[in-house]
């Protein structure tokens, strides 16, 4: 099985009784993800679609074996919830919460490094190993998920949650399946950036090609290009960079918190340039991803 998710993935949902979490817990269960427990302080004893709710992660972990957590709590509590999960022995934390202050995120990531825990997110809609496991709301309810995500050999990494589904749906409609699909999160600082995940994908036998959905802002794409170039990365990568109009409006923030351009810094033209120099195929229209991926798959 591709990366991060496997047959032994056992999940707790933190903030399980919230509006979003109730919906995606059902979608996860329907998809076959083993959601073993939920946590909402003060709601112990309730059940959400049969999943028992506890007051603390520690109690949930004592009663159920879990290795993965999806965090869906309000922004002010997200750091604490993530610390709680990592302290209780969770190995993979997928943080769904958006609008977490940057200082909190930096601490979450630093603690994760100390603990050897992987964080995906914040501001991540989750990830899917098509036909097997999914975390978070990515892809939506089961029937929708099955239409958009199909099993195959292309890994899709996206800074946008919505465009993860759109991109996979586009690929699936054209008969191209995915080995893994991950929304890395739209924040300026995320636990698993493109360049953190590429090494894992390089070792993954299921993945033959990689698609990156990129956005303006941050140095993530630049660093990814540097990594690909310096390590002579062995798998072919197709990238689409949305939001070229943002280049013309410096200092203005669009979409995700990270999407802001200052002069050349963060501009899509800069990203396209350095990515092309690193040998990444950068397409100009989103729908051109299909042809570019087909070409790579036919060559290999």
């Amino acid at each position, binding site marked *: 099985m591709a990366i991060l998710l496997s047959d032994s993935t056992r999940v707790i949902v933190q903030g399980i009784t919230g509006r979003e979490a109730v919906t995606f817990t059902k979608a996860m269960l329907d998809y076959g993800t083993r959601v073993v427990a939920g946590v909402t302080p003060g709601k112990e004893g309730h059940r959400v679609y049969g999943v028992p709710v506890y007051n603390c992660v520690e109690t949930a972990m004592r009663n159920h074996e879990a290795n993965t957590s999806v965090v869906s709590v309000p922004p002010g509590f997200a750091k604490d919830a993530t610390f709680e999960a990592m302290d209780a022995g969770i190995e993979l934390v997928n943080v769904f919460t958006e609008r977490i202050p940057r200082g909190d*995120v*930096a601490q979450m990531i630093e603690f994760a490094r100390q603990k050897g825990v992987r964080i995906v997110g914040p501001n991540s809609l989750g990830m899917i190993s098509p036909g097997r496991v999914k975390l978070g709301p990515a892809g939506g309810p089961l029937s929708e998920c099955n*239409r958009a995500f199909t099993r195959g050999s292309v890994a899709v990494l*996206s800074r946008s949650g919505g465009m993860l589904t759109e991109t996979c749906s586009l690929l699936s409609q054209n008969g191209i399946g995915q080995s893994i699909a991950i929304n890395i999160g739209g924040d300026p600082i995320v636990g698993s950036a493109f360049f953190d995940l590429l090494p894992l994908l390089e070792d993954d036998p299921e993945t033959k090609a990689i698609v990156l959905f990129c956005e303006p802002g941050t140095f993530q794409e630049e660093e990814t290009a540097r990594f690909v170039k310096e390590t002579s990365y062995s798998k072919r990568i197709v990238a689409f960079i949305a939001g070229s109009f943002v280049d013309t409006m410096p200092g203005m923030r669009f979409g995700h918190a990270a999407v802001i351009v200052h002069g050349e810094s963060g501009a899509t033209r800069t990203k396209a340039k350095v990515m092309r120099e690193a040998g990444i195929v950068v397409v100009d229209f*989103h729908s051109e991803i299909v042809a570019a991926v087909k070409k790579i798959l036919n060559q290999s």
Partner: protein
Amino acid sequence: MRLYEFESKKILSSYSIPVPKGRVVTSSQEARIFAQEIGGPIALKAQVLATGRGKMGGVRFAESPQEAEQVAQEMLKAEIQGYAVKSLLVEERLDIERELYVGCTYDDVKKTPLIICSSLGGVDINEVSRKHPEKIHKSSISSFMGLQPYKAWELVQNLDLPAKLPWAAQAILLKLWGFFSQFDAILAEINPLVLTSRGELAALDAHIEIEDDALFRQKERLGRFQIEEREDKARPPTPFEIEAAQIDKADYRGVAGRVIQFDGNLGLLIGAGGGSLTTFDAILRYGGKPANYCEVGGNAPVSKICKLAKLVLSKPGVEGIAVITNVYSNSRVDFVARGLIKAMVELGMDLKSYPVLFRSAGAFEEEGYAILRKYGIRYYDRSVSMDEAAGLAVEMIKKGS
């Protein structure tokens, strides 16, 4: 949220970082009176959030109180990058020997706080890092440990400061970090930090940006400096944008806050984040003229979508609306349909004749399509790509239906 220079200095000063003697004035008379009190050359600095105001006449000097009054009068009538100059910071003019740079921010590659200093100050630090990378000294630090004195000491060694001043610079750097972490800042820079002819360091200018997403817990602290939360864009927000921001703020659920006004005729409600970027690019590429940028995602509640749709639909000059979203996961097609229809009904619009281009798919699409069918609104599903939908919307406006 970026702070005005005078606000930044008020805070720095409370951390006992030396700043020039100064006062905020809103009239030329006040400027003259303060210049008299100073009794020497002064600087007048426009309090606007524009970057690079120095090059746009935003910083001027005066030798006498009379000249200060004259200059202030001119400046208070001016506009810089669309911002009316409403107040000036009048300061004693320091005799400067050297300009340095110190700052704190976050490194999105290393994912840590980053302390930066340079012996080249007074210019844009990004420019220095391009032209003289050897003059920039950076250190990633632990967000748990914070900036420790030894690290600050190491960094200031690069500033080539005479005699006892490295100790003073170390203290300033530590205080700057203290402020940065306590206020949830994402940028705090003193640029330039000047060395005066009297052999003292002072913060001549400062840029501070507080994390928008941390304002919920910084209100009280900022309030102590009479700093209130405000909309912050590269230009002053329009009334349309202010209204949209209020709609967003009233309900924390859903991403729908970033609304930006344009002057076209095509109203937009577009999928949030990457979806909005993709759609907006495509609409421009097909020659469309957006009336606005407005995201709908993050599973926004019906009430919020409804309010935003009403805002866009009633914007003067809007001749039709395009609702184009990516294939939804956590947001819902039916909620968008409910919000749009509720808005049109509440505005008393004719649902069957008003130009609407609706392309959405994914979560709860069947529910959404059923609602649209009931109210007679045409829609496109995922078999029409976002690019194609953008093209159709542009065409619809050209044809007028």
